[in-house]
């Protein structure tokens, strides 16, 4: 259990955080486009 907690779980959480940053860029772009009236893809 401890091995999973200290090796696998931190890796999963950090990958989720990194993917979060990438998704965030798209999401903010969508909000900006929507607000300024540009067509969504």
């Amino acid at each position, binding site marked *: 259990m401890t*091995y999973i907690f200290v090796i696998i*779980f931190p890796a999963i959480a950090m990958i*989720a*955080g990194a993917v*979060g940053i990438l998704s*965030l860029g798209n999401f903010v772009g969508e909000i*900006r486009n929507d607000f300024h009236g540009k067509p969504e893809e």
Partner: protein
Amino acid sequence: MNVTPLDLVAVCGYFVLMAIFGYLTRRTKTFEEFATGKHSVPRFMVFASLAATIVGPGFSVGFTSKGWSSGYLFFYLALAYGAQVVVSGLLLAPKLSEHRDCHSLGDVMRKKYGPATQFLTGIVSVGLCIGFTAVMGSIGGKMLQAISGWPLPVCLTLVTGMTALLTFSGGVRATVATEGLQFALFSITIPALLLIAVAKTPESLSSIADQAKSLTDLGVASMSPLQMFAVAVSFMLGETLLPPYANRALAARSNEDSRSGFVMAGFYSVVWLGVVTVLGVVAHGVLSPSTESDNVLLVMGQYLLPAGVFGLLLAAIVAIVMSSQESVLNSATVAFIRDIVCVLCKPSDRTTLMIAKAGTVVFAAIAIYAAQSAPSIIDGLLVLYAIWTPTILVPLVFGLFLRETRPMAGWLSIIAGGGTTIAWQFLLAEPFGIPPILVGIAASLIGYAIGHYTSKTVLATEGAVA
């Protein structure tokens, strides 16, 4: 707390980043955008936002403290929480997302049971969310005071004021976006601290595992089976579809986005709780045994991380507080407008948006005042947290799955569940150690059955959400 100028720069940098985000995602043209973001939130952002809301101070600093004192015991008990989020995602969230014309949980209740049930749902939702905003603001303010040394009123106002600014300007989409950033920040920083701690501790992994086992055994010995059962039940049922969670389901782009977002958040909560719990165990190889359990996370960060990087950890902890606070503040405003104001009168969309923005500021002000001067207000509002599940869960679940519902069943189950829970918990002081939430749900079920089988009145049109 000894904080270097570099650490302070990192914390200030976080607030500047949040302000920039507030600017980028600012402004909403309609209340529909403010409340549900025009149902346009994609699945990963539903997940990140939900995860950021779920991970509050209790699920971070609190679980590290539990890991320090009782090993993996609370992690095992909290698996019930992850299971609840996954089950909610599979069964309830997609059903909620089907109600594309609804802005709040109260709206769904109105479609199924009429305005009286919506009004009751609104009262519980608004009070609960303001209470949460105050609690989170209080924790975040005290944390910022410990970091900066600034006066407490300034810190309370800065934390809750920044949250209100983000929520005020952009509604739910701005909230989801900033929560996404906060999610990324703490999802990278805290696990990184764990990896550094494991690398620097003189203990081997097998001795950490032995330490965890002996701490868990100590924890199990310190609680009766009934106490452990009550904690697991609270984790399983206590926060089912709280207003901010339900709002994420309603804001999702589709039923599938809603389902996936919830399921991922449920699994993530297990991963996250594992990380913060084992941090408390690993800390035994790094810190003195006399360290206060509540301070383990911060003290370990200060001990292990270089100047500046420790500031990032502090920013991550402030982000954990603020991300939960943003969701509940936004939900308080939406529930106030839809479930209370719109039940009593029908303002225009422009007026509704103005009231929503003003409501955000007023609720934030109430939360700051309560956190600073009137903790009894917070205590009073948190009674509503105790009655959330026993009042709302039964009529909501039946409403989502039954084709034919009766108004009397809705309001009777809310009153029966809430009244019984309050009496069991606060007047009778939990006889036989039976968790109030179970007694309340049983009463709510009985109230629902009486209302359903004795009333002949059925709502004429289900889709009547104005």
